[in-house]
């Protein structure tokens, strides 16, 4: 399946109580099928707005998002969302199993198939034992795993992740990063991963999109030419990793100063 995402000329303006805020000015980029792309940018640069427009949760003021050549006008069925606030995204009145199963009930699936998908997804994130627990009985990292399992069970072609690990501790975070990379390689899902953490973006992504400060445009697209096989210990101390993250860091600093003078987009580091 070719699940490419095309964003063209996207613009989003919030208007209300006499204030007009241009959150996203003019964004154009493509995410190819099966790619893992990370979006980084200074805080408050409209990353969440962009992601919500892509997920059909917000209607853009101008421009459009196309998934597989079809314009996105509401949440498309082949897309799943993982939010930063796992505690507010999981339903506390449902057990883990029910949380994962709920979206599947909207699909024409047999009960047996649903159960199979739920157990398979929980196994993928290592939470088989927690199926009968309530989300609030689990740690933050485990709750975010449940949210990821829910997205996996939905069998999306595209997975949108909005700073999913911003609220968990550093060690859990490293585990979850490896989990996401593992799942991506295993299942071939197209993943768009928004983060404010530069190291995370470089470590995870095949490509990093650097956004400018608000009003947002794409500052630079950077190909991450690290090997496919990555691990926390070695990848993060590789000289190439350091170069890439330094470059991204500089770009974001430039973005904060408001300069888009960092050269043409799609440039490759040499």
């Amino acid at each position, binding site marked *: 399946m070719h699940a490419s995402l095309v964003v063209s000329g996207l613009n989003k303006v919030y208007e209300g109580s006499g204030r007009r805020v241009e959150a996203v000015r003019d964004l154009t980029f493509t995410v190819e099928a099966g790619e893992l792309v990370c979006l980084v940018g200074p805080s408050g640069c409209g990353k969440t707005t962009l992601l*919500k427009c892509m*997920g*059909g*949760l917000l209607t853009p003021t101008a421009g459009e998002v196309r998934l597989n050549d079809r314009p996105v006008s509401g*949440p498309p*069925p082949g*897309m*799943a*969302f993982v*939010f930063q*606030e796992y505690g*507010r*995204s999981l*339903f*506390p*009145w*449902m057990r883990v199993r029910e949380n994962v199963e*709920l*979206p599947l*009930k*909207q699909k024409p699936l047999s009960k047996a198939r649903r159960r199979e998908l739920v157990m398979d997804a929980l196994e993928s994130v290592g939470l088989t034992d927690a199926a009968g627990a*309530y989300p*609030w*009985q689990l740690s933050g990292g485990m709750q975010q795993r449940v949210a990821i399992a*829910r997205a996996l069970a*939905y069998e999306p072609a595209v997975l949108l992740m909005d700073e999913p690990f911003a609220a968990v501790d550093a060690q859990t975070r490293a585990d979850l990063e490896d989990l996401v990379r593992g799942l991506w390689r295993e299942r071939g899902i197209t993943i768009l991963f928004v983060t404010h953490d530069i190291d995370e973006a470089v470590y995870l992504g095949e490509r990093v999109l650097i956004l400018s400060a608000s009003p947002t445009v794409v500052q630079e697209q950077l190909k991450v030419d690290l090997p496919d096989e990555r691990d926390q210990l070695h990848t993060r101390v590789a000289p190439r990793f350091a170069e890439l993250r330094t470059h991204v860091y500089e770009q974001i600093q430039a973005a904060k100063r408001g300069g888009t003078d960092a050269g043409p987009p799609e440039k490759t580091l040499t």
Partner: protein
Amino acid sequence: MRLFLLRLFFVVALPALLVALWWLASDGSTNVYWPPLRTILRTFPDVWTSERLRSDLVPSVLRLLAGYAAAAVVGVALGTVIGSYRRVRAVCEPVLEFLRAVPPPVLVPVIMLFAGIGDTMKIAVIASGCVWPILLNTVEGVRAVDSVMAETARSYGITGVARLRSVVLRAASPQIFAGLRQALSIGIILMVISEMFAASNGLGFTIVQFQRSFAIPDMWTGILVLGLLGFLLSVVFQLVERRVLGWYHGLRAVSRRSP
């Protein structure tokens, strides 16, 4: 076991003390309107025979349940609609505040004009008083559904009935139960009041009847029955609530431990 006995002691201690106080204070009383508790308790089994329970307690409880159930259905249904749409809320809110401020007992004569003096009138009175706390709490609960939860539901295509049943009403359920709890005590009050007007049976009717015929100890036993009924209903309510809102109490306990 010891822990259980200790807890039982804490539950029983205060009521036992109050009964003992009443017993002692009224023991030598020769006041006709203030009979000794001993006399009241002795009268109790004679008054509340199974036949009287059937002819007076059962009709009262049935009316209460019917009115309460009607109020719950109407309150939750309307509250969900009003809570879901900002425009509807803006239109309805002032009217609701006005209607809520009208004391329900004052409606008894009015409702009598329309619904006669039968069971329909009594059920209508109970329902018209119970519906407000349920309605207003449901509005609040539905309105306050967490934005991230709502977006999660939307992004996974959970809409319509599934959204209402699995997300909105469940999220609002702590508030809805708060309304139901308030409505229960209002319901008991209105049950008695409605039976004081133009009734031929029921607890309220019986108590007034005893008072008018100067059967004072009998009247006091009626008041005891009312108290016991209220207590029993609140115990049942708590059991149901603990079952339905188990997740909520668990969640609260967790967030209290780690702020």
